[in-house]
């Protein structure tokens, strides 16, 4: 097993508001190993993007990390000064955002933006940086890279722009790439190409990827492991095939059943009643308990801790507590 690259331990992110403090991420722990693609899924408001933002230190104030630790290759990074964090961001952690149009500056050519990023992080001459930039564009599959590098973002189609954004994220050879909904704004045929690019590049360079998306199909095809978030908490984490084919947490079971597939026809989709609670009204105990079919007394009173399950999985559900799985120490129930 490859060594752990990123380790998130008991992360808590809070947003103070006039009506009290909202806990957007509540005690979330997970690891990403080198060369691994970790998918992070959940519905809107589950905390997927905030988890990504917390790791690269880009949480919008007044939100802040109020608990837990984040370690990158053994070194703690959640408490660094903005200046030191800035050196890690882009250099060791690359970022790909959802909308390729807003993540590129429309007033600068692709060459300007790539060369600036490369020279910020690596000590190279202008000429060497340009050669490297062309090489990067070539790798992400932009045809005639040497000619197109002097074009502006608006000369590119959506899929090509997203390739440029991926090239930017990879400019300084980061260990970890956080991709936040990288294919959501794209058409299916282009989406498939971008998934391929992300996968290949990470495999070639041994970089780890944290892939945040609401599209389970993308996760199924791309990720090695998948973490399912619900109302800011980790519901389940495990190898992608197991979680999709044999989900254990009742929320994951419902989520998978509610997705129509193109390979077979189901007369009716499973539906989870209700919707995810707002952060202002998370129920006591397990956050999913009002929508859960298998709810029992303990779920309403006590928050489930992530339980280790066979096959390198963790499930935060009391259903599995009776089976004698060892509960992870140090995780306190919140109520």
């Amino acid at each position: 097993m490859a060594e752990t690259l990123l380790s998130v331990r008991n992360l808590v992110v809070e947003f103070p508001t006039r009506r009290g403090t909202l806990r957007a991420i509540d005690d979330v722990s997970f690891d990403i190993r080198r060369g691994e693609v970790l998918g992070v899924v959940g519905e809107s408001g589950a905390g997927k993007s905030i988890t990504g933002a917390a790791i690269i230190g880009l949480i919008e104030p007044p939100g802040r990390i109020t608990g837990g630790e984040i370690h990158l290759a053994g070194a703690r990074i959640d408490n660094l000064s903005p200046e030191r964090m800035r050196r890690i961001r882009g250099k060791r952690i690359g970022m790909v955002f959802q909308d390729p149009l807003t993540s590129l500056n429309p007033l600068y050519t692709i060459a300007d933006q790539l060369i600036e990023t490369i020279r910020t992080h690596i000590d190279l001459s202008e000429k060497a940086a340009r050669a490297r930039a062309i090489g990067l564009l070539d790798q992400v599959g932009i045809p005639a890279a040497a000619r197109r590098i002097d074009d502006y973002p608006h000369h590119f189609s959506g899929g090509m722009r997203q390739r440029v954004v991926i090239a930017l994220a990879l400019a300084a050879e980061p260990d970890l790439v956080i991709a936040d909904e990288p294919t959501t704004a794209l058409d299916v045929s282009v989406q498939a190409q971008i998934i391929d690019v992300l996968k290949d590049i990470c495999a070639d360079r041994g970089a780890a990827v944290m892939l945040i998306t609401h599209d389970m199909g993308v996760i199924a095809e791309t990720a090695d492991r998948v973490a399912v978030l619900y109302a800011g908490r980790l519901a389940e984490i495990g190898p992608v095939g197991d979680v999709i084919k044999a989900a254990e947490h009742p929320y994951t079971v419902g989520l998978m059943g509610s997705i129509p597939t193109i390979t077979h026809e189901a007369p009716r989709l499973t539906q989870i009643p209700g919707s995810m609670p707002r952060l202002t009204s998370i129920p006591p105990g397990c956050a999913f308990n009002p929508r859960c079919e298998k709810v029992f007394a303990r779920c309403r009173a006590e928050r489930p801790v992530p339980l280790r399950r066979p096959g390198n999985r963790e499930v935060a559900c009391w259903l599995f507590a009776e089976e004698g799985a060892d509960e992870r120490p140090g995780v306190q129930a919140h109520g």
Partner: protein
Amino acid sequence: MSVPGCRPMAEALLSIRNLSCVFDVSKPWLNRVIERDERRFLTAVASVTFDIRRGETFALVGESGSGKSTIAKMIVGLQPPSGGEIIFDGTPMRGQGGDMRRLRRRFQMIFQDPFASLNPRWRVGDIIAEPIRTFGLLRGSAVEREVERLLDVVGLSGRDREKFPHEFSGGQRQRIAIARALSSRPEFIVCDEPTSALDVSVQAQILNLMRDLQDEFGLTYLFISHDLSVVRHMANRIGVLYLGRLVEVAEGKTLFRDPSHPYTRMLLDAVPDLEMAGRRRRRVEGEIPNPIDPPSGCHFHPRCPLVEPRCRNEAPPEFPRGDGMAACFAVDRAATKEAAPT
């Protein structure tokens, strides 16, 4: 099953005949004169013909710019067609007169974004009652009773009519939009990406609701989506659009089991799916060309693996395939070969 290859008129609720929509995207006159530019046109929909049968769900799929939403808008009268005909239950739809008004009561639309399609200043009750009042279907307290009944039908509570749209979640708002669409007692509903703004678990609720309502009220749906798995779940028959042209029409089952047109095959190969875990897809080539300046002949030819010289010059006509059609020379040739005795 109907007779293969022909489209029986009798059971068609809505017939689209050679429907086109061309937008003028020229620069302003002065710029054209100074820059010696010619007028430019964008053909959003090019001579599309299909039928929707009573009680079925017909889906239109395609990537952005394929013209699916433009077709929806033309059908409900939000966009005047540049050519062709829309025939609803035997009556061609033209103009705005009183007859058209009575006809328009019989179809409704559900929009993509439930945050934009409901007036934030109106109470839910008034939003749902508006079509009832506009078409003069009911009067007085009967309107309120009907609104409560409709809210109940879509899974909300009668008390919700006093609330404003902002008090509801995305899924609940889409239920309100469905209640509004049902309030004029339509037979035909155009659903333009009704679930693409929703989370998957909520999407499942709305899709199930739409199916239940179809069974209960015998509704006919035109279902527009870019999501093939949703389309597979909902549609009886499917039309595939590429750059404003209909390239294939087939029964849902046939389309997913045995797609004819190379574009449909490519699209199906490209969809990330739960079942695909760990498998490697075939690589998709190229991107959708600029619709202002589409490729000659068959629009798909630069990306097509089966391309032949004829495709570059000639737009393929519709070749019948089973219950539907495919607009592709290669598909036609393969079919002729199969049919010929060996």
